[in-house]
Protein backbone atom coordinates (compact mmCIF):
# COMPACT_ATOMS: atom_id res chain seq x y z
CA UNK A 1 0.00 0.00 0.00
CA UNK A 2 1.40 3.37 -0.95
CA UNK A 3 0.20 6.86 -1.74
CA UNK A 4 0.75 8.35 -5.19
CA UNK A 5 0.74 12.11 -5.62
CA UNK A 6 -0.70 12.96 -9.02
CA UNK A 7 1.03 15.94 -10.69
CA UNK A 8 -1.39 18.83 -11.13
CA UNK A 9 -1.44 18.73 -14.98
CA UNK A 10 -2.61 15.09 -14.92
CA UNK A 11 -5.41 15.52 -12.39
CA UNK A 12 -7.99 16.06 -15.08
CA UNK A 13 -7.54 12.33 -15.77
CA UNK A 14 -8.17 11.41 -12.12
CA UNK A 15 -11.37 13.41 -11.60
CA UNK A 16 -9.22 16.09 -9.90
CA UNK A 17 -8.09 13.62 -7.25
CA UNK A 18 -4.65 14.67 -6.00
CA UNK A 19 -3.57 11.53 -4.13
CA UNK A 20 -4.40 7.89 -4.74
CA UNK A 21 -3.89 4.93 -2.41
CA UNK A 22 -2.68 1.79 -4.12
CA UNK A 23 -2.09 -1.78 -2.98
CA UNK A 24 0.89 -2.64 -5.20
CA UNK A 25 4.06 -3.71 -3.42
CA UNK A 26 6.40 -2.30 -6.08
CA UNK A 27 6.50 0.99 -7.95
CA UNK A 28 5.56 -0.78 -11.19
CA UNK A 29 2.54 -2.46 -9.58
CA UNK A 30 1.40 0.77 -7.94
CA UNK A 31 1.64 2.79 -11.16
CA UNK A 32 -0.10 0.06 -13.16
CA UNK A 33 -2.89 -0.02 -10.58
CA UNK A 34 -3.24 3.73 -10.94
CA UNK A 35 -3.43 3.45 -14.73
CA UNK A 36 -6.03 0.67 -14.48
CA UNK A 37 -8.15 2.81 -12.19
CA UNK A 38 -7.84 5.83 -14.48
CA UNK A 39 -7.33 4.47 -18.02
CA UNK A 40 -7.00 7.93 -19.60
CA UNK A 41 -3.76 8.33 -17.66
CA UNK A 42 -2.10 5.40 -19.42
CA UNK A 43 -0.95 7.23 -22.53
CA UNK A 44 0.62 9.94 -20.35
CA UNK A 45 2.51 7.51 -18.14
CA UNK A 46 3.61 4.68 -20.42
CA UNK A 47 5.02 4.48 -23.93
CA UNK A 48 3.85 1.86 -26.45
CA UNK A 49 6.12 -0.80 -24.97
CA UNK A 50 4.62 -0.27 -21.52
CA UNK A 51 7.69 1.46 -20.12
CA UNK A 52 7.29 4.61 -18.04
CA UNK A 53 7.78 7.58 -20.39
CA UNK A 54 11.26 9.07 -20.54
CA UNK A 55 10.21 12.63 -19.63
CA UNK A 56 8.52 11.44 -16.44
CA UNK A 57 10.53 10.61 -13.35
CA UNK A 58 9.24 8.60 -10.45
CA UNK A 59 10.35 9.34 -6.92
CA UNK A 60 9.87 7.30 -3.79
CA UNK A 61 10.07 9.81 -0.98
CA UNK A 62 13.04 12.01 -1.92
CA UNK A 63 14.74 9.36 -4.05
CA UNK A 64 14.59 8.89 -7.80
CA UNK A 65 13.78 5.24 -8.48
CA UNK A 66 16.64 5.25 -11.01
CA UNK A 67 18.99 5.34 -8.02
CA UNK A 68 17.04 2.55 -6.28
CA UNK A 69 15.71 -0.59 -7.94
CA UNK A 70 13.91 1.31 -10.72
CA UNK A 71 10.35 0.09 -11.30
CA UNK A 72 11.02 -2.91 -9.07
CA UNK A 73 11.58 -0.63 -6.05
CA UNK A 74 9.53 -1.95 -3.17
CA UNK A 75 6.92 0.26 -1.54
CA UNK A 76 5.15 -0.04 1.78
CA UNK A 77 2.15 1.43 3.52
CA UNK A 78 3.81 4.75 4.28
CA UNK A 79 5.61 5.21 0.98
CA UNK A 80 4.82 8.34 -0.99
CA UNK A 81 5.32 7.98 -4.73
CA UNK A 82 5.64 11.18 -6.77
CA UNK A 83 5.21 11.39 -10.53
CA UNK A 84 7.43 14.22 -11.69
CA UNK A 85 7.16 15.81 -15.14
CA UNK A 86 10.20 17.55 -16.60
CA UNK A 87 9.98 21.32 -16.00
CA UNK A 88 12.34 23.28 -18.24
CA UNK A 89 12.50 25.95 -20.90
CA UNK A 90 14.64 28.69 -22.27
Amino acid at each position, binding site marked *: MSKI*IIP*TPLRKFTNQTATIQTNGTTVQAAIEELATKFPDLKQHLFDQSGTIRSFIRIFVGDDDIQSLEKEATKVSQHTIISIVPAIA*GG
Partner: protein
Amino acid sequence: MANFIIEFNRDLFNTISQHLEDNFPNEGCGFFLGKEGTPRVVTEVLPVVNSKEGDQRRRFEIAAIDYIKAEQYALTNGLNLLGIYHSHPNHPAIPSEHDRKQALPYFSYLILSIQNGKFAKATSWRLQETTQQFEEEIIHINKLKLT
Protein backbone atom coordinates in the same frame (compact mmCIF):
# COMPACT_ATOMS: atom_id res chain seq x y z
CA MET B 1 -9.83 32.57 -27.76
CA ALA B 2 -10.53 31.47 -24.20
CA ASN B 3 -9.55 34.76 -22.53
CA PHE B 4 -7.63 33.19 -19.69
CA ILE B 5 -6.83 35.60 -16.86
CA ILE B 6 -4.26 35.25 -14.09
CA GLU B 7 -4.26 37.65 -11.17
CA PHE B 8 -1.38 38.69 -8.91
CA ASN B 9 -1.21 41.28 -6.20
CA ARG B 10 1.58 43.84 -6.55
CA ASP B 11 3.73 42.38 -3.74
CA LEU B 12 3.72 38.88 -5.20
CA PHE B 13 4.49 40.15 -8.67
CA ASN B 14 7.34 42.24 -7.25
CA THR B 15 8.71 39.14 -5.50
CA ILE B 16 8.90 37.43 -8.87
CA SER B 17 10.47 40.36 -10.73
CA GLN B 18 13.01 40.94 -7.93
CA HIS B 19 13.99 37.27 -7.96
CA LEU B 20 14.49 37.33 -11.71
CA GLU B 21 16.43 40.62 -11.63
CA ASP B 22 18.70 39.11 -8.98
CA ASN B 23 19.41 36.16 -11.29
CA PHE B 24 20.36 38.36 -14.25
CA PRO B 25 22.20 37.68 -16.57
CA ASN B 26 21.08 34.10 -15.95
CA GLU B 27 17.54 32.85 -16.23
CA GLY B 28 15.66 32.50 -12.96
CA CYS B 29 12.59 30.40 -12.27
CA GLY B 30 10.00 29.43 -9.72
CA PHE B 31 6.43 28.37 -9.04
CA PHE B 32 3.26 30.21 -8.14
CA LEU B 33 0.29 28.78 -6.32
CA GLY B 34 -3.22 29.87 -5.50
CA LYS B 35 -6.83 29.28 -6.34
CA GLU B 36 -8.10 27.86 -9.61
CA GLY B 37 -10.99 29.75 -11.20
CA THR B 38 -11.80 32.54 -13.58
CA PRO B 39 -9.54 34.34 -13.03
CA ARG B 40 -6.82 32.21 -11.52
CA VAL B 41 -5.71 34.00 -8.37
CA VAL B 42 -2.09 33.67 -7.24
CA THR B 43 -1.62 33.75 -3.47
CA GLU B 44 1.92 32.43 -3.04
CA VAL B 45 5.21 32.43 -4.92
CA LEU B 46 7.93 29.79 -4.50
CA PRO B 47 11.24 30.88 -6.03
CA VAL B 48 13.55 27.96 -6.82
CA VAL B 49 17.10 27.51 -8.12
CA ASN B 50 17.72 27.20 -11.84
CA SER B 51 19.25 23.71 -11.86
CA LYS B 52 20.16 23.69 -15.55
CA GLU B 53 23.70 22.44 -16.14
CA GLY B 54 25.33 24.52 -18.83
CA ASP B 55 24.23 27.88 -20.22
CA GLN B 56 21.77 29.35 -17.74
CA ARG B 57 21.57 32.53 -19.81
CA ARG B 58 19.45 30.66 -22.34
CA ARG B 59 17.94 27.76 -20.43
CA PHE B 60 16.30 26.90 -17.13
CA GLU B 61 15.40 23.66 -15.46
CA ILE B 62 13.68 22.94 -12.17
CA ALA B 63 15.01 20.03 -10.11
CA ALA B 64 12.59 17.17 -9.57
CA ILE B 65 12.86 17.50 -5.81
CA ASP B 66 11.79 21.17 -6.03
CA TYR B 67 8.78 20.14 -8.10
CA ILE B 68 7.85 17.50 -5.50
CA LYS B 69 8.16 20.04 -2.69
CA ALA B 70 5.94 22.50 -4.57
CA GLU B 71 3.22 19.88 -5.14
CA GLN B 72 3.38 18.80 -1.49
CA TYR B 73 3.28 22.42 -0.31
CA ALA B 74 0.17 23.00 -2.42
CA LEU B 75 -1.51 19.88 -1.02
CA THR B 76 -0.67 20.74 2.58
CA ASN B 77 -1.95 24.29 2.23
CA GLY B 78 -5.08 23.61 0.17
CA LEU B 79 -3.72 25.44 -2.88
CA ASN B 80 -3.31 24.65 -6.56
CA LEU B 81 0.08 24.63 -8.24
CA LEU B 82 -0.93 27.07 -10.95
CA GLY B 83 2.21 27.63 -12.94
CA ILE B 84 5.86 28.34 -13.51
CA TYR B 85 7.67 31.61 -14.04
CA HIS B 86 11.00 32.23 -15.68
CA SER B 87 12.99 35.08 -17.18
CA HIS B 88 14.30 35.93 -20.62
CA PRO B 89 17.47 37.95 -19.93
CA ASN B 90 17.89 40.63 -22.61
CA HIS B 91 15.24 38.93 -24.73
CA PRO B 92 11.53 39.65 -25.22
CA ALA B 93 8.84 38.06 -23.05
CA ILE B 94 7.85 35.76 -25.87
CA PRO B 95 7.96 31.98 -25.43
CA SER B 96 10.70 30.26 -27.37
CA GLU B 97 10.19 27.06 -29.33
CA HIS B 98 12.06 25.31 -26.52
CA ASP B 99 9.54 26.74 -24.03
CA ARG B 100 6.65 25.41 -26.10
CA LYS B 101 8.11 21.93 -26.52
CA GLN B 102 8.76 21.61 -22.79
CA ALA B 103 5.38 23.01 -21.71
CA LEU B 104 2.55 21.03 -20.13
CA PRO B 105 -1.16 21.73 -20.53
CA TYR B 106 -2.88 23.28 -17.50
CA PHE B 107 0.07 25.30 -16.14
CA SER B 108 0.35 29.05 -16.65
CA TYR B 109 3.78 29.97 -17.98
CA LEU B 110 4.72 33.47 -16.86
CA ILE B 111 7.69 34.97 -18.72
CA LEU B 112 9.43 38.18 -17.64
CA SER B 113 11.79 40.01 -19.94
CA ILE B 114 14.72 41.33 -17.90
CA GLN B 115 16.63 43.98 -19.86
CA ASN B 116 20.07 44.92 -18.49
CA GLY B 117 19.05 43.65 -15.08
CA LYS B 118 15.70 45.43 -14.87
CA PHE B 119 12.18 44.11 -15.38
CA ALA B 120 10.81 45.29 -18.73
CA LYS B 121 7.71 43.27 -19.67
CA ALA B 122 5.69 40.23 -18.64
CA THR B 123 3.46 37.84 -20.56
CA SER B 124 1.71 34.62 -19.55
CA TRP B 125 0.76 31.59 -21.64
CA ARG B 126 -1.12 28.32 -21.48
CA LEU B 127 -0.44 25.36 -23.77
CA GLN B 128 -3.52 24.16 -25.62
CA GLU B 129 -3.60 20.38 -25.56
CA THR B 130 -5.35 20.00 -28.91
CA THR B 131 -3.03 22.25 -30.93
CA GLN B 132 0.09 22.07 -28.74
CA GLN B 133 0.35 25.84 -29.23
CA PHE B 134 0.52 28.55 -26.60
CA GLU B 135 -2.43 30.84 -25.99
CA GLU B 136 -1.71 34.14 -24.28
CA GLU B 137 -3.24 34.75 -20.88
CA ILE B 138 -4.20 38.19 -19.59
CA ILE B 139 -2.24 39.28 -16.51
CA HIS B 140 -3.95 41.34 -13.83
CA ILE B 141 -1.93 43.11 -11.13
CA ASN B 142 -4.10 44.37 -8.28
CA LYS B 143 -7.08 43.67 -10.58
CA LEU B 144 -5.76 45.95 -13.34
CA LYS B 145 -4.73 44.57 -16.70
CA LEU B 146 -0.97 44.60 -17.23
CA THR B 147 -0.09 46.19 -20.55
